[in-house]
């Protein structure tokens, strides 16, 4: 019996030694690899960028989803580019542009000598081809219509015609002036693709993208990795600095940080606020902040009782302690929101004062509205984490607690994300939690998109309808003088503040972590940026 027992123990020991042996060997391999990168004199030139989800497509016009743009910003370029870390407009594939006095004709002078990754020329015909492709699409194919009012032939469509004047000049003729037109052109979805590749690939273009950007597409293994390599023919001399970018998917934020700490990746987004301290405490890592262009809010569905009463909405606005929410769930890395749009966007009204956290005032307003005994309501909490709302359920609990102090019993509800959006669009919620990240850095993209009566049924989940606001927002859409537009938007924010269809909660600052030797990475407020200037020390 003892002999058999010994045999068993020996075999177990052998197995564990085998396992340890494997790990030992592999560990040396990794060390060797890292060593050769830093000590061997050759500079590290491959960047591994880990994020929470995979792209759904690599043809940027086919989606509205941010994980796609993080990749495609490196493959495609737009006619105009945003500023390094703001949404001002700068030359991109178009070097200069002219606007006619009636704001209906835009003429772009294109950059010469630019080639697509497949070797074909970038020229006016290519631009026309791309716009024709998008304008003749439909909602199933391209979300183009969300920014340009529809498709060709539809009533609201902004662009009448795009034509090539000569090889390097393109003219856009509009049906009606659109104030954020230039900003829209700079958005990631409108990256110019190689016409030849689009023709050749057909439906497969979404997994074989060809643009003019600093990096060329190499490989996409779904839910695992996307590999890009340096475009040797890139029109900007000396750029990009990296030789290769590998995008990896690691869904869990803490696991992603573990991978960063272990040297498996170089850069990660979606750092938990609660993990920030451990990154700053690690001498080989750094925290990078992405400038905020979002808003997280509590909306009231204003056609449901008692939220149809402005006093009730104002009372509840007084009963939410934004500061303690920010301290508890955003690690202090967020601004308390006063208006529906963030201060980084021009036209932000700084003179508006927020409803202070004041439970007595809230009770008074409730009494005035005829609800001195309070009421019962459903408060819907977001089931998914977003930069503007990392922990929806917990925030809802804090709000529930403070509502209870003014006699309002809030029952927290939640449902999966798909159903949540559907119910919100139908106006099925009493009060709900949602947010928005800006597309093009224009106030219109917040105020009109989220709160105009035209947007009821899509993004105006509050069913808030104000004719006064509508007139102002429409005027601002057609006004070309930016100063005048800003004044209009300031007025709009006053109306919204008074009517209180939302309690704007926060403008959050998304956190990114990277290895210490990474430099030149400037996160863009829109959430995606080209990694052209990124390099390792």
């Amino acid at each position: 019996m003892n002999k058999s027992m010994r045999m068993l123990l020996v075999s177990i020991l052998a197995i564990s030694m085998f396992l340890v042996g494997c790990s030992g060997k592999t560990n040396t391999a990794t060390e060797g690899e890292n060593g050769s990168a830093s000590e061997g004199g050759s500079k590290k030139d491959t960047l591994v960028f880990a994020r929470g989800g995979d792209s759904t497509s690599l043809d940027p016009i086919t989606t509205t989803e941010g994980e796609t743009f993080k990749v495609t910003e490196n493959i495609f370029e737009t006619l105009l580019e945003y500023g390094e870390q703001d949404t001002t407009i700068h030359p991109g594939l178009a070097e200069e542009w002219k606007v006619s006095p009636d704001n209906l004709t835009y003429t772009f002078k294109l950059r010469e000598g630019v080639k697509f990754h497949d070797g074909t020329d970038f020229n006016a015909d290519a631009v026309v081809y791309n716009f024709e492709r998008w304008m003749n699409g439909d909602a199933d194919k391209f979300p183009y219509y969300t920014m340009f009012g529809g498709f060709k032939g539809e009533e609201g469509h902004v662009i009448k015609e795009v034509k090539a004047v000569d090889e390097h000049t393109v003219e856009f003729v509009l049906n009606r002036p659109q104030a954020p037109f230039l900003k829209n052109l700079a958005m990631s979805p409108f990256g110019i693709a190689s016409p030849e590749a689009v023709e050749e690939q057909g439906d497969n273009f979404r997994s074989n993208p060809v643009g003019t950007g600093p990096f060329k597409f190499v490989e996409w293994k779904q839910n695992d990795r996307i590999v890009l390599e340096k475009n040797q023919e890139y029109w900007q001399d000396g750029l990009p600095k990296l030789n290769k970018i590998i995008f990896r998917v690691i869904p869990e934020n803490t696991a992603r940080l573990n991978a960063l700490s272990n040297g498996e990746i170089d850069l990660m987004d979606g750092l938990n606020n609660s993990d920030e301290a451990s990154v700053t405490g690690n001498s080989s890592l750094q925290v990078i902040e992405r400038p905020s262009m979002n808003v997280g809010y509590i909306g009231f569905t204003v056609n449901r009782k008692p939220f149809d009463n402005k006093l009730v909405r104002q009372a509840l606005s007084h009963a939410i302690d934004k500061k303690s929410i920010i301290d508890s769930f955003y690690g202090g890395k967020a601004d308390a929101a006063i208006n529906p749009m963030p201060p980084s966007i021009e036209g932000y009204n700084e003179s508006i004062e927020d409803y202070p956290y004041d439970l007595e005032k809230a009770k008074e307003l409730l009494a005035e509205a005829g609800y001195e005994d309070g009421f019962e309501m459903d408060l819907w909490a977001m089931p998914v984490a977003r930069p503007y709302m990392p922990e929806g359920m917990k925030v809802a609990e804090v709000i529930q607690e403070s509502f209870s102090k003014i006699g309002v019993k809030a029952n927290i509800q939640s449902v999966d994300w798909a159903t949540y959006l559907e119910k919100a669009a139908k106006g099925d919620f009493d009060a709900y939690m949602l947010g928005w990240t800006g597309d093009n850095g224009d106030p219109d993209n917040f105020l009109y998109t989220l709160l105009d009566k035209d947007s009821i049924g899509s993004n105006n989940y509050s069913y808030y309808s104000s004719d006064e606001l509508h007139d102002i927002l429409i005027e601002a859409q057609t006004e070309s003088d930016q100063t005048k537009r800003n004044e209009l938007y300031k007025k709009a924010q006053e109306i919204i503040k008074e009517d209180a269809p939302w309690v704007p909660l926060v403008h959050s600052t998304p956190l990114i972590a990277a290895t210490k030797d990474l430099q030149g990475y400037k996160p863009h407020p829109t959430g995606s940026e080209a990694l052209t200037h990124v390099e390792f020390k």
Partner: protein
Amino acid sequence: MLTYTARRLLSLIPVLFGMTLVVFAIIHAIPGDPAQVILGQRATKEAIETLTRELGLDRPWYIQYFDYIKSLFTGDLGTSLRTRGPINQEIWPYLAATLELTGAAMFIAVLIGVNAGIISAWYSNSWFDYTAMILALIGVSMPIFWLGLMEQWAFSIQLGWLPTTGREDVRDPITAITNLYLVDTLIQGRPDQFITALKHLILPSVALATIPMAIIARMTRSTMLEVMKADYIRTARAKGLGMFWVVYKHSLKNAIIPVLTVIGLQTGLLLGGAILTETIFGWPGIGRYLYDAIGYRDYPVIQSGILIIAAIFVFINLIVDLLYALVDPRIKYNQ
């Protein structure tokens, strides 16, 4: 046995057919509109209606169902609504990743679970027995999420022995042939990559193995305890046979059948239920593929994914049934 196998395989057809109907009914009963999810928050009402029509989701459900079944018979699993790719091609890399992970996890679970169960039974009520069974209890109740993160912390960050996430070193990617990376690296004669792939496999498979390991250990112990009270075991011991022979030649054969059942069921469960492990370890497996699909209401992927998992589950159970006859010659299937 052959007739039996053939009969069992034939009986798969109604089972899988029933599965398609149940899955189809459930996913169409849950609320949430795929068109809304695909188009996102920025969609207009008209756009959603157009897309619903184009996806054919406005047709009566029974027509959608028959279309689905029709294409299944031609071997077409459909097209993903989200990625627009054919599921036939898309699904295999995910499935292979999960098979590799499940295979490794069950290897660990069976090896350690069965042996721990045997030793516990042999030395029942000893310190080993108590420790093993307490560990098994902890194993069954351990949240995998937490365990996974702790493993990463201990074995990757603190000790630096193993990588935290993924299937390979992305800086030296493995060329996929079968998508079973242990096999692929061997085919390509890359022992270095084989070791890397194996190293990536250890943490997730250990995390995934904990629960089945614990269940198998407890099951083995209890059946072994019964068998060991049997007269023929006493005889074997009395004639001076060593523990090894008594256990592995006489007892285990008689005790293994319930354990085999558990192993079969657990393997099936791991195939579809490894979502948490796959999420923490960034493992691109079928669980996450399905999970994403559910979030997007990607009906074709959900249907086909569940169908494939169900088919594998039924197959595994068939194999287990056939193994019974192999282990215990008294079991015959041919009548």
